[in-house]
């Protein structure tokens, strides 16, 4: 057995684990299972960013409240870092890993450059397979189309699997206003639905919640014992409560992870088998699919299926990889292809490659800012590094602060299975948003001053030396105040006695 991976918060490690499933002497950690037992104390759940219409989301404010809940913050940090370490373990198990990443990136870039042709091909094939194909320009049209299909069938209840696209479309709110009962069938997403909260992560929607938070939610929604936070009990109670809703649903809905143009197939990956229930129990199956999900052929699908779950969860594959090529006998299948800003994003020279994203969440799991601030602090459908570069395309003003929630360490780009240069795009968005005047005054003034300094080496060196001297002698309140974001929730490192430039000049410069 290999040694267990290092922990960020060793105090969370539990010695005995009654929940472990052992097989062949190994602790099973497939799906999003943790690779070691963790225990935390109960604590009220910190909530996400406060939405105030179109005003910029204050990510820092929400992150500060998450950090002020240490049990949540530690658990979240540890859980996601564990997923990152499991991802590394899988990566090392596949010699061709880097080749797969390059292939995935090249396939996606090729497809995006010929997106119209491949969508056309998919539509042709899907129609000849008996699938009804619809096109929606935006979220509102998507919701109207789906409601129209349900209305035509007299459908009043809909069971669905998790889909970030339907989150983007505000789908559940719309359906509630139209009198349609929507039931999420993924456990994490169901928890979030019952708690009236958005998913905080694209793959593990309730990862920011402790088991005691879930016990609270379930006790006043599906009637569990509020004092019982045993995870097996909670999961089983949810299974028992959801099963009758699945059996009596009028229609089912899924998203899609991939769409294959040559065969007219769409592919859905889940661990719970809930997409297969949603698609195969009711007669009517509707799939909502973003237009960027398309790939040319089945041979390309292999590359992406091999990368997806390994990157997302550190599991070789999801428990279920489902391929839908046409309606089953007696059934009806609809696909809604949704643009919602994607075709416009295709024209952004610096940002179009963000459309390569396969929503694995690896960038979120590795991001030090995300792990410590929680996905809900971003106040947007997409959080973490990928959110920073996608969200401003939806609303540049509302999400103008998000590209600053990064240390630009580049880890996100290094783990991305489709090689999106995420951290470079984050940096580019800062420039774009400043140019568009979407950035608040304090940040803009500081950046302008930095820009002037950085363009003049001599002035920069003098300023750094002066700042180091000042930092060493300034009283705490000057460094740790509201105007210095780097002094919040962290100790500023001790300033060096000498700048690097001075050190180099003294030690190396003379030798040349």
């Amino acid at each position: 057995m290999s040694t267990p991976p290092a922990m960020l918060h060793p105090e969370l490690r539990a010695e005995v684990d009654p929940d472990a499933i052992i097989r062949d002497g190994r602790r099973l950690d497939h799906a999003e299972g943790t690779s070691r037992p963790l225990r935390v104390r109960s604590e009220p759940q910190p909530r996400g960013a406060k939405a105030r219409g179109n005003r910029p989301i204050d990510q820092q404010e929400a992150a500060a409240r998450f950090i002020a809940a240490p049990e949540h913050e530690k658990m979240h940090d540890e859980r996601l870092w564990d997923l990152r370490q499991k991802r590394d373990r899988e990566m090392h198990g596949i010699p061709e890993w880097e080749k797969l990443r390059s292939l995935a990136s090249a396939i996606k870039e090729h497809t995006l450059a010929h997106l119209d042709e491949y969508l056309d091909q998919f539509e042709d094939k899907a129609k000849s397979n008996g699938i009804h194909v619809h096109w929606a320009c935006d979220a509102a049209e998507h919701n109207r189309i789906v409601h129209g299909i349900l209305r035509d069938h007299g459908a009043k209840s809909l069971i669905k699997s998790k889909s970030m696209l339907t989150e983007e479309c505000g789908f559940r709110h719309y359906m509630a206003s139209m009198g349609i009962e929507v039931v999420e069938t993924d456990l994490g997403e169901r928890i979030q639905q019952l708690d009236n909260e958005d998913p905080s992560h694209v793959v593990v929607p309730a990862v920011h919640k402790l088991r005691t938070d879930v016990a609270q939610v379930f006790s006043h929604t599906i009637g569990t014992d509020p004092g019982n936070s045993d995870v097996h009990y909670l999961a089983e109670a949810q299974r028992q409560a959801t099963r009758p809703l699945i059996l009596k649903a009028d229609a089912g809905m899924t998203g899609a992870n991939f769409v294959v143009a040559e065969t007219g197939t769409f592919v859905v990956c889940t661990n719970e088998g809930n997409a297969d229930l949603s698609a195969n129990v009711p007669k009517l199956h509707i799939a909502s699919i973003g237009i960027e999900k398309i790939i040319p052929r089945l041979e390309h699908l292999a590359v992406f299926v091999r990368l997806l779950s390994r990157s997302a969860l550190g599991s070789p594959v999801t428990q279920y990889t489902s391929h839908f090529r046409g309606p089953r006998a007696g059934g009806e299948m609809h696909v809604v292809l949704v643009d919602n800003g994607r075709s416009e994003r295709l024209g952004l020279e610096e940002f179009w490659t963000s459309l390569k994203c396969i929503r694995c969440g690896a960038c979120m799991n590795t991001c030090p800012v995300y792990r410590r601030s929680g996905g809900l602090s971003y106040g947007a459908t997409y959080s973490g590094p990928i959110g920073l570069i996608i969200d401003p395309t939806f609303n540049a003003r509302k999400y103008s602060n998000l590209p600053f929630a990064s240390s630009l360490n580049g880890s996100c780009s290094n783990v991305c299975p489709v090689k999106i240069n995420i951290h470079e795009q984050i940096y580019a968005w800062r420039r774009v948003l400043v140019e568009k005047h979407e950035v608040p005054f304090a940040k803009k003034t500081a950046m302008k001053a930095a820009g002037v300094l950085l363009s003049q080496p001599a002035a920069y060196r003098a300023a750094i030396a002066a700042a180091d001297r000042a930092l060493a002698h300034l009283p705490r309140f000057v460094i740790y105040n509201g105007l210095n974001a780097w002094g919040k929730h962290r100790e500023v490192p001790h300033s060096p006695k000498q700048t690097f430039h001075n050190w180099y000049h003294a030690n190396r410069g003379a030798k040349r």
Partner: protein
Amino acid sequence: MSSRDGILASIRANRPQVERPLPHVPLFDDDPPVSLLSAFKDNLHRMGGVFLDLPASGDILAPVRAKIADAKIVCSIVPEIAGNRDIAGVGAPPDLSDVDFAIVRASFAVAETGSVLLGDTDLRVNAVAYLAQHLIVLLDPADIVVNLHHAYQRAEFRSGRYACFHTGPSATADIEGVLIHGAQGVRSLSVLPIARAAVNPTL
């Protein structure tokens, strides 16, 4: 202009003017495992599935009989084992909600991931593989491919309307990373290695 034409026009107006040839995807099969069956078994176990070994008695079906001995409803879609729920008589998928064990045969399996492929022709009623409490899958050891690249060359993806890789049982760890088998679908998945009958009387 229809939404379809509007979206396609917007794509044509915005699509990046870059040369990006479609790459050739190799099969990555230079270094296959010595035994596809044992690689499959290892990976199946890692993913929470159970591989039913040949018992000392030599009666290959004994492990399946033992599993279903106390079950009330068994829906078998294979000739090797008899059940007491005839899939041909199922009117609508919810009729299968009381099935304790479903027994099916996989089209093929993938050594790399420990997956079995179940398609619409294997299942007859797709929902049986998800509504049953437990799933038993018969697999011909000759039907194992080395990896997913080989898997996607199979005809099932071009002929079937539905095909699903099952890799272990339904699983979740959405609450604090605690692994649970049987989130919504089957609580267990067992695989019995057994060659296909030369003549299959039910087909």
